[in-house]
């Protein structure tokens, strides 16, 4: 009974998301057409660029990896009714921490990689935790604080990479390359010798994090607390929970996940920290990923792959068929817009949903009589 209901529920969600993406692609296609290109061939190029070869698939997953982690970060906070706009900043401090710890000498290989991961999570966790403490203790809204913390992280990283952590001889703003033992191996070429994708073990770290978040939310007492506080703080307090502690922990864990996302970029792809000229964008795209993934770890994996594919495919599309990749920005924007106005969308495409909701309200009205 429960199984059946859940399945139909999941089916409905998937149908809504698929419809959303489809309509967004359609609208993007109109823009391609206006730009004087053939939408079908553009999308063919996009698809080929995203999934057309082992290399393309690998690169798509390279982009998806940090998005999975920032998506998880936002979802975890959201389950506690917190809107973590600060995944961006938490990711940056994670990158910096990873780049710094990665250059420590004399640590055995695998241990070093793990140490880097944990350092990045700690940094991101503190960054998120600050917003959590401010929210829990003063009621200051996490959206405002995390936005400010984003800028703090950005400029702080700028300082670190241009002064104390700059790689000798100090002419270009980047850190030293991290130790080989701290890197995530890039493994695609082990199986496909001529596919030099940068896909690395970070993907598995991200997938493990999905499992961990799933277990945290639904199999632990802390997860129960996070969800209870997220749905109804008053009831959580009634149930004997320490609401402040739960909020702080949720923000800290959220930040740690984003920080971990930063670590995967440094350990798996860049192997150092380059000075940022602006926000890398993983944290903000993570919001969309979490939205599309319905704040569920499984959904987030697919959401991240979708956004990874759009990003990677767009680059290929631009170089192959000479269509500006900004068109894909339009598609992405449309998807986000549609998912964000999800309720309106449901209203339009699912009249049954409208009826069910009316029934529910009628029931409430009836019982209030």
């Amino acid at each position, binding site marked *: 009974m429960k199984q059946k209901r859940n399945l139909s529920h999941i089916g409905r969600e998937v149908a809504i998301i698929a419809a959303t993406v489809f309509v967004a692609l359609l609208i993007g296609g109109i823009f391609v057409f206006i730009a004087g290109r053939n939408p079908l061939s553009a999308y063919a190029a996009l698809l080929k660029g995203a999934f057309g070869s082992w290399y393309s698939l690998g690169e798509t997953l390279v982009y998806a990896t940090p998005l999975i982690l920032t998506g998880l970060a936002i979802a975890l906070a959201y389950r506690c009714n917190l809107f973590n706009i600060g995944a961006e900043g938490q990711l940056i401090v994670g990158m910096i921490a990873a780049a710094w710890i990665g250059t420590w000498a004399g640590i055995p290989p695998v241990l070093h990689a793990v140490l880097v991961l944990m350092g990045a999570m700690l940094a991101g966790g503190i960054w998120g935790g600050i917003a959590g403490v401010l929210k829990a203790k003063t009621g200051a809204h996490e959206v405002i604080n995390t936005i400010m913390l984003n800028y703090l992280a950005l400029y702080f990283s700028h300082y670190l990479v241009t002064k104390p952590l700059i790689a000798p001889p100090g002419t270009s703003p980047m850190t030293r390359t991290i130790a080989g033992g701290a890197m995530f191996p890039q493994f695609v070429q082990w199986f496909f010798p001529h596919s030099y994708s940068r896909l690395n073990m970070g993907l598995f770290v991200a997938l493990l994090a999905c499992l961990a978040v799933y277990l945290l939310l639904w*199999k*632990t*007492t802390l997860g129960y607390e996070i*969800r209870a506080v997220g*749905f109804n703080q008053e009831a959580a307090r009634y149930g*004997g*929970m320490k609401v402040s502690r739960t909020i702080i922990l949720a923000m800290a864990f959220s930040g740690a996940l984003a920080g971990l996302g930063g670590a995967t970029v440094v350990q798996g792809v860049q192997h150092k920290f380059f000075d940022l000229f602006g926000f890398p964008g993983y944290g903000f795209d993570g919001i969309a990923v979490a939205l599309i993934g319905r704040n569920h770890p499984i959904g987030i994996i697919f959401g991240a792959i979708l956004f990874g594919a759009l990003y990677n495919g767009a680059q290929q599309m631009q170089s192959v068929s000479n269509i500006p990749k900004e068109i894909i920005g339009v598609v992405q924007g449309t998807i986000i817009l549609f998912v964000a106005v999800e309720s309106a969308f449901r209203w339009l495409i699912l009249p049954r949903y409208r009826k069910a909701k009316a029934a529910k309200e*009628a029931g409430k009205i009836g019982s209030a009589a």
Partner: protein
Amino acid sequence: MPASNQPVLEMRGIVKRFPDVLANAGIDFALAKGEIHALLGENGSGKTTLMKILYGLFTLDQGGIYINGSSVKINGPRDAISRGIGMVHQHFMLIPPFTVVENIVLGIEPRRGLALDRAKAREEVLRVSEKFGLYVDPDARVENISLGMQQRVEILKALFRQAEVLILDEPTAVLTPQEVTELASILRKLAEGGKSIIFITHKLREVMAMADRVTVLRRGEKVGTMTRSETSIEQLASMMVGREVELTMHKEPSTPGAEILRLEGVCALNKRRLPALKNVSLTVRAGEILGIAGVEGNGQSELVEVVTGMRAPTSGSIFLEGRRINGLSPREVHSLGVAHVPEDRQRRGLVLDFTVAENMVLTDYAFKPFAKGISQDWSEVRGYARNLIQEYDVRVPGEDTSTISLSGGNQQKVVVARALAGGPRLLVVAQPTRGLDIGAIEYVHRRILAERNRGAAVLLISLELDELMSLVDRIAVMYEGEIAGIFDQAAVTESRLGLLMAGGGARVGGQTG
């Protein structure tokens, strides 16, 4: 009584279907000019739906509405008002910082140029108020007047819009007994002046006290229309429920044991940091029920919170079985054997988005056997929930059902089951039957009495004097944060309590057991 044979208002064969439920299954309803007509029924019987159709808030699926014999279509409250129908909602639609006059004229205010013509508005309001003998302070801000006065403002608002038919939705829910009496005489006066009045209620005694006729609804159908003089409380109750009901609880005399709860000079602030409890002292012993009567907002909520650890007192002491529990957290208080049925099950008592199983352990999830280290043992939780669902007769497909889909009565059963399951030493129960129908009320009352007979100390806070009088052994009245008196249940009358609830009379040093 009917002044002529032509009903001033008639609803014929009203059908209203919601996707899941037939809310009105062909209801006929006729209102005579100058009568007070009660619309009686349990939750979900369709009485509010019927009136919302009349007031234009719902559209009807079938049937017709006739005013003075001619068919009318009512497409919204504006239509209803223009046809002389006014409604006083259960939750008042007033703007607290506005004055009485401003609230009454809102929307149809006399203007001078673009501005409100205050003098004229005031004058017009006073004229209507005098005409109907409904006296109000025209310049008081609504936030500063009592609920009884606010209701009077609502009635005036309708009369100001020339209402001939007045609908009142559960008008006595927020009133003290004295205010109820006052309301009854106001309604009588209005009826004598030719207005026709419908009031929605589920309280039988009010029907007998106030109505000329009563129409009883059950599950969307009309059971019948009776003249008051030809019916009885017992008959109305069985019409309403569809079976014989026990209206009074059979209660063994109490055999109080050791003192469980003692409050000594407890003071506390409310949410807005204003004094809410002023020097409250009381005791509750094992095997007795102490009731707290009072009009809403006189410190009862804060009393409950202070006892259950949800609010820290600013001074005074709270002892549980001799142990001072000031400043303990809700969880610590709970683990000392205090169970709490909160006044608002939806806002505080339940996480509505959780499953029934998840809610069943809301206060105990962190303890064995539900928690093992950091992990939550869901098979334990679900097994436990299944047992409670069965034992407390919660009507639900299964423990994994979302709590939001349960009826109010079943939601309350979840809250009560959770609170009673551990066999508490002290049971703090606030508004346990608010919004429940007779069957569920009966059930909850029996459970509370069973706890008392088992030897638990029970602190029962209720706005319903009937409920208190039928359950408690002793009763305290709270007024403006103070205990205005404590009495043995048998030694006090409702009118005495009502007087104290309204702040009447000097402080009474009643006997404390």
